[in-house]
């Protein structure tokens, strides 16, 4: 049986202009959970809440079975590697210096592993952080997150703004990490294709609310794209439709495959199709 490494129940956080409402989410061991949503949907807030960097207004969060507001949680952070949407490191620090700082911060810091990641990612150790490209800064953040024996990785837009080759390289790193015993990854991104490649579960956040949280394969099996005439579309049960685009010559809709009968052709939907249709439907 899979145990959950992260469990979020009824989580809420209110700001003046944004609210995260009643979030329920589980991240099982050995899995990669993709947290998808538009900018400002609440992905970064969720990660900061998991790390207890900001206080919650309601709900509970447990990580490795421990409430994240318990006094011992700070020690548990040894086991959590986090990559934020920016690497918040002073611009004149070098990768080598960052390693020295982190070796005094994490008890299980592995300098050899860090040096190995720097080498693997092609990061010059003596170059100042300000002279790094976006891809290099993200790689540095990932190198640090992977060098202290973490069992859980929380990645906030870690692949955004990177070229496809670098993204692919990093996705492989995350996938390799997740298959190790007792490990898990939460990867937030608005690049749905990245999530489709490696995630086991997909959680879709929209305007601070969880629209869906499901196994990726189940989602891809359940939904399909129906392309038909307006007349044919009239025969489709209303509860099978989760989003419609009306064109001049016909209709394109996201439908639940099982509920569509009558020989209508339902194509396979990509994760991006599902997310886009569902977000539009939610707006209505």
């Amino acid at each position, binding site marked *: 049986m899979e145990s959950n490494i992260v469990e979020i129940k009824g989580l809420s956080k209110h*700001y003046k202009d944004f609210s995260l409402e009643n979030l329920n989410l589980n991240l099982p061991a050995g899995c990669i959970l993709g947290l998808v949503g538009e900018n400002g949907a609440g992905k970064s807030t969720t990660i*900061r809440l998991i*790390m*207890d*960097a*900001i*206080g919650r207004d309601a709900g509970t969060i447990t990580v490795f079975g421990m409430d994240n507001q318990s006094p011992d949680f*700070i*020690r*548990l*952070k*040894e086991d*959590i590697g*986090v990559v*934020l949407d*920016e*690497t*918040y*490191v*002073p*611009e*004149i*620090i070098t990768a080598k*210096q960052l390693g*020295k*700082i*982190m*070796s*005094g*911060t*994490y*008890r299980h810091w592995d300098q050899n592993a860090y040096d190995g990641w720097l080498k693997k990612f092609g990061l010059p150790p003596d170059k100042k952080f300000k002279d790094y490209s976006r891809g290099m800064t993200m790689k540095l953040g990932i190198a640090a997150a992977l060098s202290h024996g973490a069992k859980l990785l*929380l990645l906030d837009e870690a692949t955004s703004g990177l070229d496809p080759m670098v993204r692919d390289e990093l996705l492989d790193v995350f996938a390799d990490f997740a298959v190790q015993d007792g490990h898990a990854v939460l990867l937030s991104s608005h690049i749905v294709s990245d999530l489709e490649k490696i995630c086991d579960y997909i959680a879709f956040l929209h305007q601070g609310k969880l629209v869906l949280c499901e196994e990726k394969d189940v989602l891809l099996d359940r939904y399909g794209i129906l392309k038909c005439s307006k007349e044919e579309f009239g025969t489709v049960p209303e509860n099978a439709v989760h989003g419609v685009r009306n064109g001049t010559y016909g209709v394109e809709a996201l439908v639940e495959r099982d509920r569509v009968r009558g020989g209508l052709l339902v194509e396979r939907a990509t994760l991006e199709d599902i997310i886009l249709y569902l977000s539009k439907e939610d707006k209505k």
Partner: protein
Amino acid sequence: MIALIKKDLYLVGKQAWTLLGIALLFCISPKLESFGSTYAIVLAMTLPLTALTYDERCHWDQYMAMTPCPPKKIVLSKYLFALLLIAAALVITLIVPLARSFVTGDTEFDLAEKLVGSGSIMTMVLLVNALMIPTAYRFGVEKGRLTMMLMFFLAFGIIIGGARVMGGDKMFGWMETMPLATLGVCVLAAVLFLNVVSYFLAVRFYLKRRSGAYD
């Protein structure tokens, strides 16, 4: 903790070595010693702010919130870093002239006088730190700097205003009867106590800032 102080040293390294070098050079010459002392004070007063500015600019607090480093340690490291700089400034303004007097056989060198002079200045720097660190966490470094200056002027205004209203003798007369060493120890103890209060305030402000309460 050491790692965090090390980080601050990386941040101000070049500036610190330049100021230290200049202060050291000036302190070697008896005629230019006062310039050296000024540089040493500048070093002790400005570099903690420089480190705080770097932290604020890159949102270092957000990064540290993801690590097992407790906020109390992060804030304490700032006070220790400031103390380290004060110690460096003291070494330059006190030890260098002392060593010079030994080497040159200068009989006019008065260690007690020097100790009072440097000690007073460094106590003043300690007082500035006690005001500066929490205000920087509360208002941000730039606004914190202005707030700190306002508080400083306000405090001096109250002291000077009080002396005018009550009369200088009434207000400060007791100091003249007190032995200098006792007065020095009392002032230092008061400033250290203020630093302790300042630390607890700074931790509170740091946590609130990190949670976005001041955004």
